[in-house]
């Protein structure tokens, strides 16, 4: 036991003496985690950033003016009016996510298209092809505002009255008696009666009638470990992701360190003492686990103190962090066991580690992945680590969620460890 403790102690002293390793493993995840946390929205109270949209207004009708006003008032958009040429250039450069082009004559044509069989006017939408999701959002918002403004105008505005009068007069001149024309005449007559009622301006204290609008509203309620900072906190995810990434890279360094020790002869010198190969490997795994656990706790301590990340399930957090530490240690041993030379192993191992963290959702949360990638990454241990940290922090889930994450990570750790011990043993023959 003395030899085991001495070996573990030696590794801990060597790690703390290596400033570069400390910098890589502690400061970088904090810096990059902070950056990603900020990008992904910060605390729960923070608002989603507004979408930059250019508006090219080529129509001077009242309907178009009202649409412009509605778009300007929308909290999801930051609208800048400009000429068509400038709008095209800005979308091309990525300064604007999309440009809405309201064509000349749009107000009149839109009203006619609401009731009549006339040709529907086209609103041009120029968009940045790298912002497909934004296109859908802009389309939805635009549809809502156009529908509301046009219908309001048609049921109560001057344009609507004029359109109804003209349409009824047109139908009277034609003297059509087919059932469709009769029905349309009756509908327009009803609309004319509706338009003739006293307007809000004539009825003090009454709200203006709003035309067609969404037949429902939503009550948005975030389901997380709490509200405000205690609830969803993108720093919780970004620190988990960056912690997992850099600690896994530390695992790579540990594996390379063993390969270097084997090459330099210090490994044989240690084995010349009355210690078994398994003792040596387990001591390395134990020290690596302790270092990884300490780093992960330090990273989250910083996140908690500075960004208010809440550990909703402390016991679960300890379990997930411990299992991830064991996973890191066994990953390092696996690299040491199967790496031919430190140089060759480093390249492959760093690549493998980056793939693991990418698929694990360290850079971009896994719930943003396409469904097939989400299914595939179930086989990636880092996905379970990051999901586990999410579960015990901002999601506020209980031990059952933590235990699943811990179990899968432990299974991978055992698999990696057994493979490494087997390979080391075989090589020693």
């Amino acid at each position, binding site marked *: 036991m*003395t*030899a085991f*403790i*001495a*070996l573990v102690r*030696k590794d801990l*002293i*060597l790690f703390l*003496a*290596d400033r570069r390793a400390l910098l890589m493993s502690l400061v970088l995840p904090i810096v990059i985690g902070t950056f990603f946390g900020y990008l992904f929205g910060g605390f729960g109270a923070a608002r989603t950033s507004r979408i930059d949209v250019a508006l090219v207004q080529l129509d001077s009708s009242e309907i178009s003016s009202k649409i412009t006003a509605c778009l300007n008032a929308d909290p999801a958009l930051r609208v800048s009016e400009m000429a068509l040429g400038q709008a095209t250039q800005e979308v091309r450069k990525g300064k604007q996510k999309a440009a809405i082009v309201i064509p000349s004559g749009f107000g009149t044509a839109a009203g006619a298209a609401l009731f009549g069989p006339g040709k529907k006017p086209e609103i041009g939408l120029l968009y940045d092809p790298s912002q497909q999701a934004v296109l859908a959002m802009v389309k939805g918002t635009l549809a809502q505002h156009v529908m509301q403004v046009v219908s309001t105008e048609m049921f109560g505005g001057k344009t609507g009255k004029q359109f109804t009068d003209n349409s009824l007069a047109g139908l009277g001149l034609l003297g059509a008696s087919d059932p469709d024309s009769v029905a349309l005449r009756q509908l327009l007559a009803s609309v004319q009666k509706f338009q003739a009622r006293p307007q809000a301006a004539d009825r003090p204290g009454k709200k203006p009638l709003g035309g067609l609008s969404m037949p429902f509203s939503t009550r948005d309620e975030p389901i997380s470990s709490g509200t405000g900072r205690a609830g969803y906190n993108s720093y919780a995810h970004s620190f988990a992701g960056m912690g997992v990434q850099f600690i896994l890279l530390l695992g790579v360094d540990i594996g390379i360190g063993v390969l270097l020790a084997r090459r*330099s*002869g*210090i490994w*044989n*010198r*240690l*084995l*010349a*003492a*009355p*210690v*078994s*190969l398994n*003792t040596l490997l387990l001591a390395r795994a134990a020290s690596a686990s302790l270092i990884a656990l300490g780093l992960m706790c330090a990273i989250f301590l910083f996140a908690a103190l500075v960004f208010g990340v809440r550990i909703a399930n402390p016991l679960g957090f300890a379990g997930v962090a411990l299992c991830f530490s064991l996973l890191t240690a066994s990953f390092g041993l696996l690299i040491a066991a199967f790496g031919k030379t430190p140089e060759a192993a480093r390249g492959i191992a760093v690549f493998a580690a980056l793939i693991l963290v990418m698929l694990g959702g360290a850079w971009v949360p896994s719930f943003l992945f396409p469904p097939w990638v989400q299914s595939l990454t179930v086989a990636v241990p880092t996905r379970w680590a990051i999901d586990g940290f999410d579960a015990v922090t901002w999601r506020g889930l209980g031990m059952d969620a933590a235990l699943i994450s811990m179990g899968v990570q432990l299974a991978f750790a055992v698999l990696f460890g057994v493979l490494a011990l087997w390979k080391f043993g075989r090589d*020693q*023959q």
Partner: protein
Amino acid sequence: MPVAKALPPAYTLRAGLANLAAMATILLKVSQLTKSYGARRAVDAVSFLVQAGQTVGLIGPNGAGKSSTVSMICGLLRPDAGSVELDGVVVTRGRSDAKRKIGFVPQDLALYDDLSARENLKLFAALYGIRGAELTRRCDQVLELVNLADRAGDKPATFSGGMKRRLNIAAALMHDPQLLILDEPTVGVDPQSRNAIFDTLEQLKQMGRSLIYTSHYMEEVERLADHIVIIDHGKVLADESPAALYRRLPAQAALRVELGQAAPAALTDGIRALPGVNSLRSEAATLEIQLASGDDALPVMLYLERQGCRPLHFATVQTKLEDIFLNLTGRSLRD
């Protein structure tokens, strides 16, 4: 450095007496050790003995099988056949008790640059279960022995090559082993540091410690060894005392003659026929003539004079132990 500085005076006397008594005791018995790597047999039925208090030089060129032999003695490598017994206990890999009696100084420096000299020693001692006051006492003794007591708190990264080598030896002495195995401990060391290492090893020898010293420098082995094992292509070619090995030599002196051109066959045949000439080797314009004694050089030079041959340069060379290797294998140790 006097031994008394490192150890209590009574210790050296006791060690000396014990050394005398133990000389006839067999400490290490290497029997028919064999190891192959694929189709290549690196060690081929190697056997030799090390008596208590004896220093054995294991000599051979690079790739001769020395390191594999040493690895099997230290329990680092499992032999395909044969065995190693230390003080009657078979050495095996893992937690073998026999390993506690062996101190191994590897060819490469086995030190942690970021630990101080004392911390390095403490680590290696802890692997052998030494702790507490005993650990501190052993650290002080060993640092004194290798003349690094004043640098105990410094990191090896700040040491010269020779100091690192001495600390490497110190690490192997922390658990007070009966047998110290040194695998080419002077590689890359300047002559001054080499002398410092030899001083340390000679002290250990005086203290009655058994040593196995592997090298491909015969002069190093000559200085230290009571017994020499010559190994090549995995086989033991000689296993004798230095005196016995000298007796094997066909010549005690050699004459090297540089001619302006290659010697004709008639000339070399004539030299070979002279009394006192044991052998002759002609390479390009150089003759290397092995002589029974240094006195036999003069007749050879007179013969050359008579044949009208004027050497550009000539020199007599005293035969060295290294020539034994040449004599046994037909090639130089450094080939």
